């Protein structure tokens, strides 16, 4: 038994030496708790957060659960509060990930806010949003019209018929089309569920039934590969443009082959940067303006005071030219 104690002492002495070096600086600490660690999307946010931390002079702590489990997430948030970091941002799995600790954070004067995913009525300080549904819907129509003109026939392939975010995007596509481009013909949305095969089949049928179709929008990211493969196997690259909401890594090969003209999403690295910037603002006690100048952002970042939402900006458009700059 004595041996174990001795070993433990040796280990603890060693780790003390390591950690006292790490805890030496005394900068304000901003933490971000993702929904899940080890996936490219949140890795990109972490990278953006680290960049912001370096440029803005704060310590950035990135810690998240290994499963999408709200209790694990809550435990991480609770421990960050006990540690006494200055600001904590959470991409909440569910309102319950922060609801029990909002009061505790307030009592210790810790700024608790949401980023990437929101819990509106929890009492969070601000929500750093990646994009609005309206922005995503309108952008994809505008970008398509640039490529195929205003008098085109466009098919829509979505995922689950019950997914509220996908349906909201489709609604805003239709709204944008009828308001700005009355001659644009959007076909009724088709639902592929969660599989790429079904999306490929539906896209093939769409192209066969509508020989004059000019573009197909893949609404769910799971449908992107299916739509692209259908365009490739039908030999219609160039004649039909694929587009959709999918990450650069998902769409890279299709953008390069020409099956996809572009994809619309946001840049999680920028979102991570903005999250840390917002944390710094809150710590410094600076109120958000209606339009905020953030270093490294081309456009000013807008703030909606009534809803408490800080918006990253218009969605990013990924094309064959710029896709290699992104990794998520």
């Amino acid at each position, binding site marked *: 038994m004595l041996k174990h104690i001795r070993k433990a002492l040796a280990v*603890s002495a060693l780790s003390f030496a390591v950690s006292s070096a790490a805890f030496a600086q005394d900068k304000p600490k901003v933490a971000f708790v993702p929904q899940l660690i080890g996936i490219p999307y949140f890795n990109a946010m972490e990278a953006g957060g680290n960049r912001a931390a370096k440029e803005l002079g704060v310590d950035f702590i990135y810690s998240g659960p290994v499963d999408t489990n709200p209790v694990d997430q809550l435990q991480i948030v*609770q*421990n960050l509060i006990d540690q006494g970091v200055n600001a904590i941002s959470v991409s909440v799995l569910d*309102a319950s990930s922060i*609801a029990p600790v909002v009061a505790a954070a307030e009592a210790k004067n810790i700024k608790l806010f949401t980023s990437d995913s929101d819990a509106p009525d929890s009492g969070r300080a601000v929500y750093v949003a990646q994009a609005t549904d309206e922005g995503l819907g309108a952008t994809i129509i505008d970008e398509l019209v640039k490529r195929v003109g205003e008098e085109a026939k466009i098919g829509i392939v979505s995922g689950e018929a019950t997914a509220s975010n996908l349906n909201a995007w489709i609604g805003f596509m239709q709204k944008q089309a009828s308001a700005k481009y009355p001659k644009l013909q959007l076909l009724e949305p088709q639902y592929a569920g969660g599989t790429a095969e079904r999306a490929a089949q539906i896209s093939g049928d769409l192209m066969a039934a509508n020989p004059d179709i000019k573009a197909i929008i893949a609404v769910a990211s799971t449908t992107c590969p299916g739509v692209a493969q259908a365009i490739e196997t039908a030999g219609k690259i160039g004649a039909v443009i694929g587009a959709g909401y999918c990450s650069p890594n998902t769409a890279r090969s299709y953008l390069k082959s020409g099956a996809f003209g572009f994809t619309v999403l946001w840049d999680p690295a920028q979102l991570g940067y903005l999250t840390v910037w917002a944390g710094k603002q809150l710590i410094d006690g600076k109120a958000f303006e209606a339009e905020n100048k953030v270093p490294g952002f081309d456009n000013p970042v807008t703030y909606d005071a009534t809803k408490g939402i800080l918006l990253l900006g218009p969605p990013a458009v990924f094309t064959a030219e710029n896709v290699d700059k992104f990794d998520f």
Partner: protein
Amino acid sequence: MNRIRNLQGSTLVLTLLALLWVVVVFVLLVLKPSVFSLATVTTILQFSTILALVSLGQAIVVMAGGAGIDLSVGGIVSLSAIFGMLALKAGLPSFLLPATCVFAGAVLGAFNGILVTRLSILPLIATLGTFFIYSGLALALTGGAAQSGVPGWLLIWGRSVFSSIPAPFLTIAIPVFAIAGIVLMWTAWGRWIYAIGFNERSAHLVGIPVDRARLILYGLSGALSGAAALISLAWLGSGRPNIGQNLELESLTAAMLGGIAISGGRGGVGGVFAAVILLVTLKTGLLQLNVNTVWQLGIVGALLVFVLLADRLSQRWR
């Protein structure tokens, strides 16, 4: 003779756990003195409550032998929480919510018991099946969405703290462990459970109703999971269809770490309690030091292997 050896076994485990706990606390103290506040104590107990109740249920099922194991505890927690919230939406008076959750858990647990004792399905297989049924049903009933609308008075209980001890821990976990400890140590019932676990055939021959006892233990394990579900509602403020995720393995880890023999008939609830506190303290400590959560899984695994090894070696030396 056996009784004395059992005692030595569980004392050894308890000493080992206490020592490990001291080591964890000591290392933390050296590395990060700021951790030592009453808030950390509250945090540890808060996150121990659900795991402690579920682990106790797991422990009594394993203790009663016959390859007993309850892999469905996580599913029971999820489904009881969802069932309680759905019942509330259907018009159940809110003061009945606690009883509904516990009762739902007991019924689900008893179903496990029926599969194992009446239909003679191996517990590992039976509860693996019900694990999928229960957690799948919880997801299907809600479409994966969290159920809000927990009554306010329940939240007050679930989130209040009495001199650094969270109310659910004080009012449910401690009494339940005390009762379980007393029953196991000083009543005939407790002796029966050890006897069944130690040697099922002789227990049967001396007239202990083995099957009925096991059925009741599965039901009790379910009821404890139902109580854990209630605490999750009172604490989080909503019913999550996957709230019980990972609890089956975590509770099994706590039970094994706490000195419950996987073959049954050996161990005590004190060890389980100590193991839960140790596990949560360790997890909290690693989080406080900002150790990557991926490493935490591995460290818990190493701890389990270490304690079981120590236990095994001590038996061989004797």
